[in-house]
């Protein structure tokens, strides 16, 4: 199973085991990672699972598109490597993936 690391704004690290096929948001919520609120449960409706994908993982994880892109255009603290974790599907090759979180969600 791939392990992924969420790093809070204050630097706290949370490494959790994810299941290929589940969303990165589900992996965070299942382990109570603080800072991933995920209010809409993965419907791409709220932008409360905003993360920054580390540089060396961007090619594999890919860029935001469609609704996700539009949400991110108006979310807080958006950067070029912003993604919504509910729209990232965990794959076996993502073992070691690291994402940072913004100071606040949405």
């Amino acid at each position, binding site marked *: 199973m791939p392990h992924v690391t969420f790093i809070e704004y204050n630097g706290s690290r949370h490494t959790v085991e994810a299941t290929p096929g*589940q969303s990165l948001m589900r992996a965070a919520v*299942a382990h*109570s990672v603080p800072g991933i609120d995920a209010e809409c*449960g993965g419907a791409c409706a709220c*932008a409360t699972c905003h993360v920054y994908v580390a540089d060396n993982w961007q090619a594999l994880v890919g860029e935001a598109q469609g609704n996700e892109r*539009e949400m991110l255009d*108006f979310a807080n603290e958006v950067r070029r490597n912003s993604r919504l974790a509910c729209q990232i599907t965990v794959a076996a090759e993502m073992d070691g993936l690291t994402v940072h979180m913004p100071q606040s969600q*949405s």
Partner: protein
Amino acid sequence: MHPSHEHVVIIGAGHAGGALAGYLRQYGFGGAITLLGAEATPPYQRPPLSKAWLKDSADADSLLLKPPHWYPDNGIALRLECSVEQIDAGAKKLVLACGEAIPYTQLVFATGAAARRLAIAGAELQGVVCLRDLTDAAQIKAQLRGARRLAIIGGGYIGLEVAATARHFGADVVVLERESRLLSRSASAPVAARLRGLHAAQGVAFRLDADITAIEGAAGRVTGLRLADGSREACDMVLVGIGARPNGALAQALGISAEAGIVVDAEGRTSLADVWAIGDVTRRPLAHFPGLFRLESVPSALEQARRVACVLAGRELPAHELPWFWSDQYATKLQIAGMTGLSDSTVLRGDPLGQRFTVFHLRAGVLCAAECVNNPGEFLAAKKAIAAQVRPDANRLADAAVPLAQALAGAPRDTLVPAL
């Protein structure tokens, strides 16, 4: 960390109750937590029950807020399939239906709401269903596959979402609504018209101003609906989606005001010391709007859960949040920020017949709500502008050529309007 002699007992293991248990531990609450649920399933997401889950694209495990082992791992006593018989607020203990007594130091009602039933003949026939929990949804999912014609009583969000799913399975669908238009209390006319057109294009039939007098059946199974004008709608399945009533009886028995929902303050306190309430069962104040509101909404329940958890864990309270709602029907996404019911004027931005548009709502010139159809970016922008109580220029707001960020950049209300 909070003194560990505390014992928080949460009645109701739905989204609100489950989230509260999680936030308490996340915020460092060190006391005991007991979470009492009537259903057989650990806390789960309800919104997908009428959307993705019903269409089979989400399995039961994916609905769970936390995996089952998370509760014992975090010292939370999750008790499923149990109901509370009575509460002794003086002695601070409650008694379960099985006779077991549980003492508490803090009690939280997260009892939710129950589907409103139709008080007409035939409501008990086989094939007549409502949608509130996983058991209901599983039953609907199983029946939809064989259904030929589904009649949906109530043109609200649950009814319309199920209509979309039923069409996905190929069943004929008729929606019967008592009012003269859909979503009369929860959406503006352009949004309601858009959703109606969307469903009509998918073959859903509508009967508005429909006064249903009886559900008819044969051999114990539903066969049709009888209307006051003498007409009949044939169907082999009926979904009753006419709203919900708060489950406030236990609280009322304690003398807490709970007739149209348990009345709470901004931190979830009821009128009784050490007794709290969160979620669909509550009537709550909102930071940006006058009055008390009973919101059936996950974001509202989560905000209340966070605030109660903050108080009980001795943590600083976060800023107040703005209510918001969403609905997915076919490929159309509706997101609503703020409270549409309070508006005195609306501003349409975009073409209501086109792919996307937004209806902004103003109250005395101040932005109070926005309904966004396939417009997720405008939704987030509006959410912030409503919270900031801006007074936008209506002409600029209506002009899609003016970038929204500029159109919403009216001055905050406080800088323009002197205090009364």
